[in-house]
Structure formats: structure tokens, C-alpha cells
């Protein structure tokens, strides 16, 4: 379970990146955090991963405070970034092996790695190829396989579909739903409203560091999510122009 309690981040230059975010993503839930660039989506993920320290508030993973026990909370969470690069001189399997062991999984076999890569839809002939020969979609799949092999109860994804072809993106959504069904809490930050409509259990829209809208699946399927999102974005543009 992922929890943000009054989570606030103000950078040294005074910019308020996150303003008292309150959020709870329960077990077996996919939460889509939508918003424009700079809305605070990635800051939220960075706070959950302890890459930055909150100005105030708490980020909890499975009830454990990220600030107080960063190493423990990292055992409970996997992370897939927007642009998975990994070690180009290593094969896909070697990358998996490195990150699995980094996550404390020391007894996995080659077969485990192959299975994980198959599960994310990677072709068998790519398993022992060097990462530097992979396309972005293939690297993204390896990134997902790394998250899967870590086998945590929580998954954080930062724009994972960006740059993926529609087929790969659809496969990713299928995989996330499968993981959700296994009881995992998934927080996905994205601009992709179409994928949100497909897979999200709840959707939140962020603007200028604040969570300005929260809808359950039933609610956003009834409403026109695209219209709501665009309205918020438009408001943001109008506001920006007024300020100018």
C-alpha cells in the first residue's frame, strides 16, 4: 500500500513542487496520476523512492515511513522509469541478474530470468543479447521484468508508455492488470488518458503540485475523462496567460 500524508516538497529555489498531497493506493489497485509536465507527478515518485526529502508530510510504503526507513521501504517497491536504459554492455539476462541481486534475490536461476522476460513479452532470442542493441520498447520490457523479478507489493511507474508503440503499450497495460490482480498497488504517472481509461481503478489529476481531481473507475467512465483532463489543462493555460 502506498500512502502520501500531507506530502509537500518545496525546492531550494522556492518552487512548490508538491503541495500537501494526500493519497492512498490500496492493494490490488492501479492508480493513474495524470497531469502536465511539472505538475508534481515525478516528484511524488521521487519522494516515495527517497531520492528527495519531503519538506513536510509523510510517504509510507506498506505502512513504513520512507524517510525513516528508506532501505526497508525499497524492499517493498519496484520502479520503472520513463526511459529504461540499463547497462548496455550487459545482456538482458545479466541486467536482470544484477538488479535482482541488488534487490536481495540471490537464488534466482537463469530460467527464472527467462520466465520473467517471457512474461513481459520479450522474445527468447533477445535474452542473451546486449542491451545496447535493444529498441526503447524492448528496454522498457526488460525494465518491467526487473520490477517483476523484484516481486514487490508496490510498483511505481513514471511515464512507462512514453515512446512505446501501441502494441507494446497495450501489452504493458495487460501486464499491469495482471499484477493488479495479484494484489499489487500500482502508481503510474502518465499523460496517457487513453491507457488510464483502459487500466486505471482510480485516476488523479495533478496541477501545480496539488491533486485537483480524484475519480474512481465508475466515476470517470461515466464522465468524459478526456474532457475533464483537458478542462483542467485549459484552466492551467488560461491561468498562465492571465498571470502573464
Amino acid at each position, binding site marked *: 500500500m502506498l500512502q502520501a500524508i500531507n506530502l509537500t516538497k518545496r525546492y531550494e529555489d522556492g518552487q512548490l513542487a508538491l503541495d500537501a498531497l494526500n493519497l492512498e493506493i490500496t492493494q490490488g489497485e492501479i492508480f493513474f496520476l495524470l497531469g502536465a509536465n511539472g505538475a508534481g507527478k*515525478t516528484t511524488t515518485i*521521487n519522494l516515495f*523512492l527517497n*531520492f*528527495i526529502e519531503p519538506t513536510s508530510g509523510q510517504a509510507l510504503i506498506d505502512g513504513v515511513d520512507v524517510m525513516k526507513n528508506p*532501505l*526497508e521501504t*525499497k*524492499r517493498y*517497491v*519496484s*520502479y520503472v*522509469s520513463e*526511459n*529504461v*536504459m*540499463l*547497462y*548496455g*554492455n*550487459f545482456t538482458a539476462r*545479466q541486467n536482470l541478474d*544484477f*538488479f535482482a*541481486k*541488488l*534487490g*536481495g534475490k540471490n537464488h534466482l536461476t537463469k530460467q527464472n530470468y527467462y520466465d520473467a522476460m517471457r512474461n513481459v513479452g520479450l522474445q527468447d532470442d533477445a535474452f542473451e543479447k546486449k542491451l545496447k542493441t535493444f529498441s526503447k520498447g524492448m528496454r522498457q520490457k526488460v*525494465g518491467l521484468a*526487473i520490477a517483476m523479478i*523484484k516481486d514487490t507489493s508496490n510498483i*511505481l511507474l513514471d511515464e512507462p508508455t512514453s515512446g512505446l508503440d501501441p502494441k507494446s503499450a497495450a501489452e504493458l497495460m495487460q501486464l499491469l492488470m495482471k499484477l493488479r490482480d495479484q494484489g499489487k498497488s500500482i502508481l503510474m504517472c502518465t499523460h496517457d488518458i487513453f491507457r488510464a481509461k483502459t487500466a486505471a481503478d482510480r485516476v488523479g489529476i495533478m496541477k501545480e503540485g496539488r491533486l485537483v481531481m480524484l475519480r474512481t473507475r465508475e466515476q470517470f467512465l461515466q464522465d468524459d475523462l478526456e474532457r475533464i483532463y483537458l478542462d483542467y489543462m485549459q484552466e492551467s493555460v488560461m491561468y498562465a496567460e492571465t498571470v502573464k
Partner: protein
Amino acid sequence: MVWFIAKKEFRNNIVTPGFIVGLLLCLALIPYTVYTGIRTHTNRLAQYEVDIKTAEDIYMKAHTYAQVNPILVKPVSSLSIFSKGITEQTGSKVKLDRKEKPVFSTDIVSLNENPLMSKFMSMDFAMAIAILLSLLGILFSYDMLSREKEQGTLKLALSHPVSRSTFFLGKIAGIFLTLTPILVICFLVILLIIQLSPSVQFSSGDYGRIGALLLLSLIYFGFFVFLGGFISSRTKSSTASIILNLFIWCILLFLLPNTAAWFGKNISPTDDYRQVDFYTDQIDKQWWDVQAKEVEEILKNENLNLFGWAYCWDMDWDGAHATMFTPRESMEYERRKKELANPILLANCNKKWAIQSDYLQQIYRQEKTVRYLSCLSPAGILKLIATSLCRTGTDSEVHFMDQARQFQDMFYGYFVQNKIFSSYAYFTPQKESEFPNDWDESNEQAARWREEAKATSTFDFNSIAYQDTQSFPRFAYVQPTLGDDLFEQLYLIAGILIMCILLFWLSFMSFIKYDVR
């Protein structure tokens, strides 16, 4: 976990172009410098054998004690194959002369420049190590953090339950691990070259020094790894990091050591050696103008007269150093002259030393200033410690010359104590009882000797017996121990260690606070 990350770093590094280029450069340059070092060492060793033989002959083939002017030869260090130091410019032997204490070696190349200051850019193993290890240290570490950040692996790695300190230490250990195959391969090649060179023989103490040199090289490598790591954590991109690293590398490796020599010469200037020559010449002039005449006066007052020599060779300031068949009266004149002259010459020698030592202190001071300024560069420190460990540095030269002067005091002290200057054996192989009483007897003795000895010429002295010099002091150069050398270089070792620890701490703290986003 540190070891695990280090292994990953190692596997990742050894396939990079930097590693391959580094390995090839090391393989080309390091064995080559050792090979040329061995060639120079072999030549010097051959010269050493000749010098030692000559030095021994001086004791064994002296017809008179006055002919025993020992040559002191500095042993050739096999370790010089690793660092030439100042050996090529300072010479390696000293010929003792009771009229003057040795200031520098007899075969010194030039006194125009301070001979105790080594030329920084002379290429040898130590210099190759200084260039290559620093370059490799930077190549392996300049993108230590920035590359991980650029390729997104840093965020992914730190999203796992691994602390930043563990990750950092793993990466540092991985870089050191990457150097291992390069060192091992180079070491094996060097070992092979040494095995094929019979002139190079190491004592167990030498192996200790090689071990110390290896350890020092690793500390030096560490300095540049930490420097690269620190810059990597303070720059936004790998390109900026490599540019800054190379800029600092150029300053540390080339600019600082060379400007240190220039600044040292200006901060701590020395007199011209010709000035020293001028003042010592004054003392010599005093001998010829005053003291020698006073000696003659005393001899005259004692009614001692020189009526010439029959067979005489090796003339010196106190008269003949070898004569035979000379009538008794002239022999007594010679003996008394030497008895009177030599204490004055020895006293003059001490007077000259007061001037020479003052100059030498200036030379030492200048060398020390340059040495301290060189400490600003880790390459300068490496070179100074390496020359000390290989016994080719200033300390070794100063140590040798100090011992040579001590030996000179002891040697001529022995002459004074045993009244050798007053003895007939000092200047003639003939026994006192055999001295001719007049010139007729002198001619007779000479004719008989030529006939018996079948002398091929007037000066064929091969048949003349040599003096027994067994009891004369012999020079045995006492090498400083490894402990002595390390103790003397303690401030340099401490300096480079402190720099390393400081850079490690800075890069570590910088990484702990590194913005991984």
C-alpha cells in the same frame, strides 16, 4: 554487496574502449621503460665492475702509501631500472684527495644546474606509471556517477534496498578491480623481461621496496579515481566531467612539477659554483704563496736539502709521491717535507670545506624548496618517493657523499694517527736501510735493478713490490634500509595519503548528497 557491485563494475569496465586503450598503452610503455632501464643498468653495472677493480687496484698495487688515494664507488641499485632519478647527472664515484673534500661525485656531468634536482620529464618506469595510472584512474572514474545518471541506471539501482555508501564503495572497488588485470599482465611481462636479464638481481630488501612501490602506485591511482569520482559528482554531464578531469590532470602532472622547479630556483637561489672555486683557489694560493714557503724555510733551518731525485714519479703538492734510488739526504728531505706539509694540507681541506659546505647547504635548500613545491602534485610525490625507494634520488646521493666525506676524515685520520705521512713508505718502496748514500751508489742500484728486473723502460716498475695496505680503512657504503627511506619520506607518504583520504571523503559526501533525479 560492495563486492557484488564491484564485480559488476569490473565486468562493465573491461569492455569499454578506455580499458582496452589503457591496457594497450600500459603494455607498450611500461615494459619498454623497464627494458630501457635494464639496458642502462647493465651498462652502469659494467662500468661499476671496472670502477671497483680500479678502486681495489689502488689499494693492492700501490708502491707507496701516497699512491693510495681511494676511489669510492657507489653500488648500482638494480631498482634503478624502475626509476632513473638523478643517477645520470650525479655520477657514481668519488676519488679521495687529502687537499679537498668531495662535494660531488668525481664523474658528475655538470655543475651548471643544481645536480640534485631531477629532470621531471625523464621517461622511466616511475614516470610511465605516473602518467598511465593517473590517466586510467580518470578514464575509469570520470563518468562514475554521471554515466549512471545519464543512462538512468543510478535511479533504478538506488530504487533497490542498497545504501548510497555501499553503492559508492562498490563502484570504487570495481574501478580498483578493473586495474588488476592491467597490473597483473604488465607485472608478468616485466617479470619475464627481468628473468631474461641476468644483470638484474634483487635482494629480499629490494622486493620489499618493489612492494612499497606497488602500494604507492595504488594510492596514487586512488587519488585520481577519487578526483574523477568527485568531479563526476559535481558535473552535470560526462563530457563536462572528462574535460575538467583532463584539465586538472595536465596541471597536476605537467604544469605543477615543472613550475615547481622554476619557482624553487627563484625562491631559493644558489651561488655560482665558480664562486666556490674562486674562494677555494684563494686557500690554495695561500698554500703556494705562504705556507709552502714556510715549510721550505723550516726545512732550510733544519739543514735539509733536496739534491734531486733519481727515479721519481707521481709529483704532488708535498713533493714526490714515489721515488727510488734517491740518496738518503734527499729522502730525508722528502720525508720531513711531507710530515710538515700534510697537516697543513688537511687543515686547508677543512677550511675549503667550510666554504663548500655552505654552497652545498644552498644546493640542499634549493632542492628541498623544489621538493616541497612538487608535493602540490601527486605525480611529484610519486616520483620523489619512487626515486627514494629505488635509491636513485637526492637522499641516496646525499647519503653517499656524506659517507664519502666521513670516510675521507677516517682515512686521513688513520694516516695521521699511524704517522704514515712521516714514514718513508709514504713516498718510496725502498726500505730505509737500502737508501743509497750518494749518487754513485744511486746509479749503481738503478743499474742493478734494471738488469735484475729486465725493465723494458726506465719507468717499468712492475717488478717493484707493492706496499702492504691490508690495515688501511676500506670504504663500505652502508645503504639506508627500507625503514630509513620510508621514514625520510614519511611527510610525502602522509601528504599523498591525506590528499587521497580528503578526495575520497569529498567524493563520498558528494555522492551521498548527489541529486539522482
